[in-house]
């Protein structure tokens, strides 16, 4: 009973944190929300995984946040890509997240029927994050936000996949994919900020 309550609290945290990532303009707050989101992901994954393997998700997630945060911090004059092609108001974003939440709550019992044993909070949390990630990817072209959207979507998938596949190799490879996304995001954020040097100049 207690674990169920905590699981639903974790689902609420995923909803609030993913909505915050979409709505907040400040990259520090977005990364902070992602860090909190990983705690909820850790809890939901631990419903089906042993503690040690669930903590891999948490540690990997925080490492990715550290990589992205350090990179972004070093870029004082970085221009944020202007997302001008969609309605940017808070009401629109809340409405989008409301739709995602409704879909997640509506779909969870049906998925539970199709795949018994996953648990409603796990399904709701997973679907919620997948939806939030896809919504985020749909409304942004800013590089950091694209990476945050992908990480959110992957977190949702990992919650659901942990319930059906517990191989260590998969957990390890998924951690590498998450870290890879973080490093890739960091690389792409830095790209363009380093001046071109020809091979002849490098040799000198």
């Amino acid at each position: 009973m207690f674990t169920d309550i905590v699981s639903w609290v974790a689902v609420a945290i995923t909803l609030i944190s993913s909505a915050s990532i979409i709505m907040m303009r400040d990259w520090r707050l977005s990364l902070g929300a992602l860090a909190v989101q990983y705690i909820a992901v850790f809890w939901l994954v631990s419903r089906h995984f042993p503690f040690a393997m669930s903590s891999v998700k948490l540690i990997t997630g925080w490492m990715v946040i550290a990589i992205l945060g350090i990179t972004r911090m070093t870029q004082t004059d970085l221009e944020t890509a202007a997302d001008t092609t969609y309605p940017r108001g808070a009401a629109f974003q809340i409405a989008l997240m409301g739709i995602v939440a409704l879909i997640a709550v509506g779909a969870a019992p049906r998925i539970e029927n199709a795949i018994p044993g996953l648990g409603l909070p796990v399904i709701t949390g997973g679907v919620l994050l997948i939806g939030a990630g896809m919504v985020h990817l749909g409304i942004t072209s800013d590089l950091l936000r694209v990476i945050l959207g992908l990480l959110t979507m992957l977190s949702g998938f990992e919650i659901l996949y942990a319930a059906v596949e517990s191989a260590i190799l998969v957990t390890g490879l998924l951690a590498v994919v998450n870290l890879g996304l973080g490093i890739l995001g960091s690389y792409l954020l830095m790209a363009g900020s380093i001046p071109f040097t020809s091979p002849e100049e490098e040799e000198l």
Partner: protein
Amino acid sequence: MSAPILWIALPLIAGGLILVILGERYSAYVGGALAAILALLAVFIPIDTALLIGSVSIKISPAIEFFGRSFELNTADGSLLAIIYGLSALWFFGTEASGTAHRFVSLGLMIVALLTASIAVEPFLYAALLLVMAAMLVVPLLVPLYQRPGRGVVRFIIYQTFAMPFILFSGWMLAGVEASPGDLNTTLQSGVMLSMGFAFLFGIFPLYNWIPQLMEEASPYATGFLLWALPTFTVIFALGFLDRYAWLQNTPQIANAILFGGVMMTATAGFLGALQRHLGRILGYAAIAETGLLLAVLGLKSVEIINVVFLILIPRGFELSIWALALSIIKRKAYPLKFSDVQGLARKYPVATGALIIAHLSMAGFPLLGGFPPRLALWQELSVVSTAASFWIFFGLTGVLVSAIRSLAALVMANEDTSWEWNESWVQTAMLVIGVLGLFFLGIFPQALQPFLSSLPALFEHLAQ
């Protein structure tokens, strides 16, 4: 020594060492030589068979355990490894001529190693994870640190990442379908999931929009390598699915959907390619059209699937490497490769222009070139199944041919008083001429591939029956 260590761990480590230790000058030769040696080893040393050399007995064991799962390369994988590493050697040697050796060879070796791991991993579903990791390693090749990333590369990352969850989930669901074959709901759901995953991986219409964008933004040689490597291993992965779950191919709706997806890709890419005025985008559309052909083959219910697939894949490696190399050479003079920029360049870069057009014609299926025999084999199989599909594939390939003629027209459109020059270096000329000769050889003597093709059906036992 085990096969996964030799063909996966060794190139992975070598790639890392080349990145750290070697400079640009030697990396092409070292990486190319390593790939060539690995290809030769795959040809001459059979896996899991004791070989007596003098008094020394050598045996390459087929499998290695890693985190509770195994990586396995069997005797039948030998030909496949020879093809993969042989073509990789061609790409790596070409980096010297294209001027992109820096990072290309090291990352390229790591990418090929990861993609080889995707063939070897058991259960084979985990290949989806290795494919996405390989896709991530491609990005530093596409976006140098001094260049801002464009939209194409961002879309590429998004689509490749999207593919992985769909495929992993579908694999899990397919296991459920096997347990209860009568459950139509699960069958439908798993089929949709699998289709979505492969749609993202292959870049099925309209999900291929990142390819032409990338061809404009990034180095043609790096993008060409990406367009060779990822679809090649995705096709092998898809063949694994069709082989493992035979009912996928036997379900008419799924087989038709695969065929339709392939025909759509070829027809639309051929048509759109014919309208382009940028040499890089034309290459992108031609590569999409050929990926469509591969997909169309997968949709056929024929025992010849494997032969036709590899008959397409081998010349594809030659075509794309020559074409991308020629574009890299021309791009140094005519950035950003629009028709207006390259006008008349045939007189300044005759070898590069000739190689580009020949590779392009080969991809259109021009007789006597490497692309012709596989297209003939495809039509032979396809005409039995659907005349409409044959027509639309013909339509797409006609589009590729039209774009070849338009490119040729733009490249030779020089003033009459412009003198002929030879601006390619000896290395560039040698690489292009060898590649072109290879295309003619494959076109005139396709039976030369028979020793490689004969053992490949053993990899996919159910498909070959």
